[in-house]
């Protein structure tokens, strides 16, 4: 028992005490934030499917910090992307050799060396899921496939021009945030990744940041998913602020319902996938995933549908939440850039909402004051939250006014335009920054 200290037994507490005050308070803050996310998920304020696993992951990774044994620490340090500062890299290596490296047994997100990876996979809890499904964007494709199965593209086929126009208006935040981020000191790759938060489409943000700014993908993706929940809570206030009650309650003239057959929807999936993959091969995995989902639904492949909209979609969502939580280590989140990211994320979403409502007003005037401007906000591609928000706000003024079909058309087009913008960013930005 000689030399044994009680705190060696409880290393989570020891590593907390021995860390710098910033890291200590950061870890405590993130543990509390994790608990808050679980609470808000349970209460339905934020998306429970994501927030409950994410909150628990955040708690576990910030509580479960220990001093890694020298072998593990050396593998983690040498298996990670080398630190840009050689002095810090040398210090890390020395700490690893002396067994003083604090870390967790959950994940090493910047692992690059394949030989170290094999060792890491044996110890890091979520490493295999991260390496094979997250770090390459596969999880985004799985979720996109699930979204495809849930979408009824008939709403788009019935009003393609209106839906596309509104969706494009809602990309205002995605575009305007890019130069703002550059002005705040981010490079083009990072700025494009942050700007994608304005699309309100989690898989797109994940895909873009993994492709363009791998070092910042953790905070950007976490910010994006945290804010997606705010679309449901925040946009109603934006609508009430920018659209007077008289216009909010505008009843749109009843049009004969255009019945779109499943054959037509399937043909759209095939042609849409072909054209978009031809135009943007860099985003082809996303387009394929989305349209495979649509095609499976329209072809009536019930067994595939059961797999995609059940185990695949919900399994991917659960692991996404858990991995995002585990990635929220204090050392990652305490990067000073994160505060700016939080501000830029909210600016992007706000501008997208404003852009959508401007598009809604334009549709209102061009249609001879027949189209309710509130449907503009449904072009923000947070399916189907923004369409529901639009209908709810209209119904609160005029209970029998129905705008949901038009709103869903714009909403689905929002997914397509977000994928288009992603395709342009991941194609154009690397060409410019070569």
């Amino acid at each position, binding site marked *: 028992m000689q030399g044994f200290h009680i705190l060696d037994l409880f290393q989570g507490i020891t590593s907390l005490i021995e860390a710098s005050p910033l890291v200590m308070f950061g870890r405590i803050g993130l543990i509390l934030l994790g608990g808050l996310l679980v609470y808000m998920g349970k209460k339905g304020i934020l998306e429970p499917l994501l927030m409950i696993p994410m909150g628990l992951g955040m708690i576990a990774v910030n509580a479960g910090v220990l001093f890694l044994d020298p072998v593990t620490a050396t593998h983690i340090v040498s298996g990670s992307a080398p630190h840009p500062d050689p002095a810090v890299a040398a210090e890390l290596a020395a700490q690893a050799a002396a067994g003083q490296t604090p870390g967790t047994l959950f994940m090493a997100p910047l692992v690059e060396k394949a030989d170290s990876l094999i060792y890491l996979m044996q110890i890091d809890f979520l490493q295999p899921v991260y390496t094979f499904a997250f770090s390459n964007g596969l999880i985004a494709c799985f979720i996109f496939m699930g979204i495809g199965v849930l979408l009824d593209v008939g709403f788009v086929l019935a009003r393609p021009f209106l839906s596309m126009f509104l969706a494009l208006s809602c990309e205002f935040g995605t575009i305007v945030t890019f130069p703002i981020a550059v002005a705040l000191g981010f490079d083009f790759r990072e700025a494009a990744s942050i700007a994608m938060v304005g699309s309100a489409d989690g898989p797109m943000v994940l895909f873009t940041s993994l492709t363009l700014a791998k070092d910042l993908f953790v905070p950007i993706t976490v910010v994006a998913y945290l804010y997606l929940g705010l679309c449901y809570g925040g946009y109603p206030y934006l609508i009430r602020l920018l659209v007077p009650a008289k216009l909010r309650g505008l009843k749109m003239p009843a049009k004969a319902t255009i019945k779109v057959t499943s054959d037509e929807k399937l043909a*759209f999936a095939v042609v849409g996938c072909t054209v978009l993959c031809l135009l943007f091969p860099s985003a082809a995995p996303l387009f394929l995933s989305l349209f495979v989902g649509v095609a499976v639904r329209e072809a009536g492949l019930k067994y595939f549908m059961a797999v995609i909209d059940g185990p695949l979609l919900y399994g991917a969502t659960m692991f996404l939440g858990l991995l995002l939580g585990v990635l929220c280590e204090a050392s990652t989140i305490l990067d000073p850039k994160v505060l700016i990211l939080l501000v830029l994320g909210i600016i992007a979403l706000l501008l997208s909402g404003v852009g959508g409502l401007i598009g809604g007003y334009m549709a209102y005037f061009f249609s001879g004051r027949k189209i309710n401007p509130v449907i503009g906000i449904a072009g923000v591609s947070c399916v189907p939250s923004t369409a529901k928000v639009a209908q709810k706000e209209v119904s609160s003024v005029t209970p029998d006014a129905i705008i949901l079909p038009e709103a869903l058309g714009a909403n689905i087009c929002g997914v397509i335009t977000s994928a*288009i*913008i992603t395709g342009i*960013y991941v194609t154009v930005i690397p060409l410019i920054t070569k």
Partner: protein
Amino acid sequence: MKAAIQIAITIYGIAAVISLLVAVLIKALFVTLRRFSR
């Protein structure tokens, strides 16, 4: 900053053209399929 604004405008322009193209494609496809199914 100026370069970033130019890039942003260009990207939005490309996105607008592609979105319009997709909308035209959807409409054309829809009309063609309806005509053939008659």
